[in-house]
């Protein structure tokens, strides 16, 4: 093989691999990204039942109810709208009423959110950025600008 041919092989390999991985990326991005919505977004945008998304907001005060076994039900609110969420599992350490929370799952036909993940956050002063931003946009929560450092 001449130098030119070798280079052609290398370039073809690179281009092929890049094309393949771009396809993979596009395919995966189409199927596996998850949108984040607040309860008001859900009401406004009319999200269909069965579509997977992340629901974020504050755990509504006085809303946590234990069900059968490890099932638990609570409300996620941005103080304009509240959505009931059911979750079967052990809640993260920092799950508390009035605290920020992000849950992932889908709506059932009755408009109840069936969560399969409730995201744990390490720090009680920490507010997930999406939640903080969404709540700020709606003028619900002001938040503290300077938070203590937590590595």
């Amino acid at each position: 093989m001449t130098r030119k041919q070798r280079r052609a092989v290398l370039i073809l390999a690179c281009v092929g691999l890049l094309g393949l991985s771009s396809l993979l990326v596009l395919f995966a991005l189409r199927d596996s990204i998850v949108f984040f919505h607040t309860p008001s977004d859900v009401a406004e945008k009319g999200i269909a039942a069965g579509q997977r998304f992340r629901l974020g907001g504050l755990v509504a005060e006085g809303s946590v109810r234990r069900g059968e076994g490890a099932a638990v039900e609570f409300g996620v609110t941005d103080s304009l709208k509240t959505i009931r969420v059911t979750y079967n599992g052990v809640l993260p350490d920092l799950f508390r009423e009035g605290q920020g929370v992000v849950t992932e799952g889908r709506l059932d036909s009755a408009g109840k959110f069936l969560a399969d993940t409730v995201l744990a956050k390490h720090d009680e002063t920490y507010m997930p950025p999406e939640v903080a931003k969404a709540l700020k946009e709606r003028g619900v929560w002001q938040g503290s600008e300077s938070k203590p450092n937590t590595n």
Partner: protein
Amino acid sequence: MIVEIGHFALVLALTVALIQSALPFWGARARDERLMDVGQPAAVAQLALVAGAFLALAHAYVVSDFSVENVYLNSHSAKPLLYRISGVWGNHEGSMLLWVLILALFGAAVAVFGTNLPRALKANVLAVQGAIAVAFLLFIVLTSNPFQRLAPAPAEGLGLNPILQDPALAFHPPFLYAGYVGFSIAFAFAVAALIEGRVDAAWARWVRPWTLAAWMMLTLGIAMGSWWAYYELGWGGWWFWDPVENASFMPWLAGTALLHSAVVMEKRDALKVWTVLLAILTFSLSLMGAFLVRSGVLSSVHAFAVDPARGVFILGILVVFIGGALALFAARMGELRQGGLFAPISREGSLVVNNLLLTTACATVLVGTLYPLGLEALTGDKISVGPPYFNMTFGPLMLPLLVALPFGPLLAWKRGDLAAAAQRLWLAAAVALVATVAVYAIAYRGPWLAPLGIALGVWVMAGSLVELASRIKLGQASLPDAWRRLKGMPRAGHGTTMAHFGVGMMVVGIVATSAYQSERILVMNPGDRAGIAGFTLTFKGAAPQRGPNYREEVGLFEVERGGRAVTSLVPSKRLYDAPRQTTTEAGIHASWRGDLYAVLGDEQVNAAGGYAVRLYFNPLVRMIWIGALVMFLGGLLSVTDRRLRIGAPRRTRVRPSPVPAE
């Protein structure tokens, strides 16, 4: 007083770094040896000053001096000594100081051990190191001063985030930073070589040990972080494709590629342009990781303080260094002569494949990590990219890499014989086949792809042993002869075998635990029994206990297997005194089959009572971290190879260091 001395030392270090970045560089341009030689004492002085500043802060932590704001915010007098020390880097300011300390350490190591480097190259390397130090010292002094005093001094500190009060996490940041910062040496060498416009095989030989050292540290650091997440977060998982994890994983992928391409450059004088670019990219990814983590632009399970000013500053550093280096690269790329022809099927060819796949995989991780940022900036939609994305993109790219891995070391340089290599690997293929059948037989109900995944890991492990065997001519020569060859082999060869073996172990662990994990979530009252993966657990109840700086609710589970008592698990839920925060301590029973993992959840406040309990069985999960450790040890073996020894004098030089020209 000590605190003020520390602050002063830090500012002094900044001025020394300025000198270190300017004078040797100027000297190299003007061919002035006296100016070039300033780099060495400057690097050592910088280390002394930064170490002084770091020790001053550590002292403030150890004696719990709450008049220092940083100590007040992140420490507590009731904390055990280990965590008072690790608290130094358990916060933003202190961790940046640690970053600069490690930077200074590497810089001084180049200055002291790099006796065989050409004078001008060494001067330029130290100048680039100095410039990086200037940037980060400025960052600390201007935006994140750890020595800020508080008046009046509070009587007690707020305490360290309890989730960080853990032995693995105490040492996780230093190793991780040693990895990140270690790649700055490769970066400095690349930029220095570009400034000189000369990159040759010797350059790769000098860069390799530093890259290897950084890579080892990063491997261990990431593994420690993953192990910590496994037992401390109580989710039973070991990797979450979280942006902060990705931030450390991307430099690792690029660094692994760099490690391999530097071999080609050293041995065959080929892939020069690519290797230099990779050296720049690897450190760029380290810097980007620091930016993503420190600026809080990404939502992560790891909570970090968000301060826009700091983010912008790091972004500035990022732009200056990456942009500058890439511009220099673009300007000088044409001057780098390509050498060393090779056929597509050859050792070089296999290393090119390795590089292509690793960097492409790194790029897909990058896209997945940054996509939410980009989309939000463009459309305002908030999304998250989760594990499914990474499994769909990263997985398929690793597959061919693992299949090809055992072939690489068996191919000859320049022109290899694929058929001969395949012939040698028949034993490895047979072992992998047996493994597939065995796994099907044992776990016939699992996902059908999983046995193939495990076989892939076994293939890599067996392949690395076959390579070793064929090198010492086991089976062809007599046993004593093979033994002699084994002993005579350079350590770097053993290192390669070991690191590849570690990769295989890790693959086996990852596939086994992802495919065959069992999980049960249930509510248990004292006396209740639950079965998982052949174990039977009896919940004996939970009782409150008191630790040094926390209260905890400790559950007791008696574990039986086949009617025989195996062990007892004591998972607990801790409530720390300061800050008042709960953490989960999983109860884990490790065995060669896998880990039995129990988490005690909330007490149920309803009529039935009881505790929420989560049980997992994670088969072969230890192989993941043991594999990483084996990879680390392989690196260690290589880095101690005589041929690569950092300070080894060159044979051509008669007297190592004559009196410097005064």
